[in-house]
């Protein structure tokens, strides 16, 4: 029987992955559509990763002294939800770089805090592999389904339709994860 906190974290990340995963590998197609070349594609994605990577270590360290990891996590999810809608206004590689940097900041806030909360939510060491497997497995399957849906939305509709769909799903995921505050108070 999984604890309620683990369930919120697991289901929250599953909903989030459904929204986030829709863009996935067609990021490069979008970057080329707005006038980018291969190096622009690489730089845009690299900026996101480098900003996330640099900040995630700082946030991870800082969050150990803060009691409210939950709040940091929700702020991170919120920033990324807003920026997903921001993709609608991207019309040049420079705009894309700005959004990617912002997404890196948001990611740095929720990623280490989510991991630490999930890591500490279960004390049963015997099932550590199962729990991490469940989390990663569910996430990957949902991402896979999301990628197919994302590809279909872009093929039969447009990138704007994709960004709106992604943003709405991420908003639902963010609101759902806020239930963790109630548990904390209890």
């Amino acid at each position: 029987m999984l604890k309620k906190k683990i369930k919120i974290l697991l289901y929250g990340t599953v909903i989030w992955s459904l929204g986030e995963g829709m863009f996935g590998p067609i990021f490069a197609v979008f970057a080329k559509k707005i006038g980018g070349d291969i190096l622009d594609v690489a730089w845009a994605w690299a900026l996101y990763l480098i900003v996330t990577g640099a900040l995630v270590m700082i946030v991870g360290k800082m969050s150990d002294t803060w009691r409210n990891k939950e709040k940091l996590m929700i702020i991170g999810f919120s920033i990324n939800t807003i920026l997903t809608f921001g993709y609608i206004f991207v019309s040049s590689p420079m705009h894309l770089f700005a959004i990617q940097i912002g997404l890196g900041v948001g990611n740095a806030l929720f990623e280490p805090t989510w991991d630490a909360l999930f890591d500490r939510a279960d004390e049963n060491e015997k099932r550590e592999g199962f729990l991490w497997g469940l989390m990663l497995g569910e996430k990957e399957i949902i991402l896979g389904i999301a990628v197919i849906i994302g590809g279909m939305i872009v093929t039969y509709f447009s990138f704007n339709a994709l960004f709106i769909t992604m943003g709405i799903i991420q908003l639902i995921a963010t609101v759902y994860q806020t239930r963790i505050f109630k548990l904390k108070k209890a």
Partner: protein
Amino acid sequence: MIRKELKILLYGNNIYNFSEGMLGPLFAVFTQKIGGDILDITWAWALYLIATGTMIIFVGKISDTIISKEKTMVAGYALRAICSFAYLLVSSPIHLFIVQIVIGIATAMNGPTWDALYDRYDDSDDEAGYVWGLAGGEGKLITGIGLIIGGMIVTYGSFKILFITMGVIHTIATIYQARILGIKNRYTKC
């Protein structure tokens, strides 16, 4: 102070991520180059993710009981290295789908086991955010740097050069990460 096992896991993962990052979003460009459209890109990626997700739950379950996490993880690293070289033989979306499924299995073998081992060797309860931040942060930084280099290799060289470079680095990561087996054996003998 970080334990030696955590260092091996971290550095091994960094080498792996560097290579992994080199292809990154250029995967879509490669798929289009071999004749794929947007749906081929998404299906190829989705097959990888679904294969990973399905196998990961299974591997996560048995790695607690039947097989040691360390061996499963190193085998996953080795399989991923083979797959990087296998990209050299890909000339149609169907070939790509097959390689992606095998990469999915490799990721399922090295993903949850790495996480669980990292979790196990992290005994600093009051520094969980820092230890996990280090893992996620270094991984992302290195992946980002790998991606820029990957983009340059494709722009000024070719995808073939990229895949050979990735394969070599993945092999180095596998050999480095295999050091954890030696440490585990020493602890077991004691």
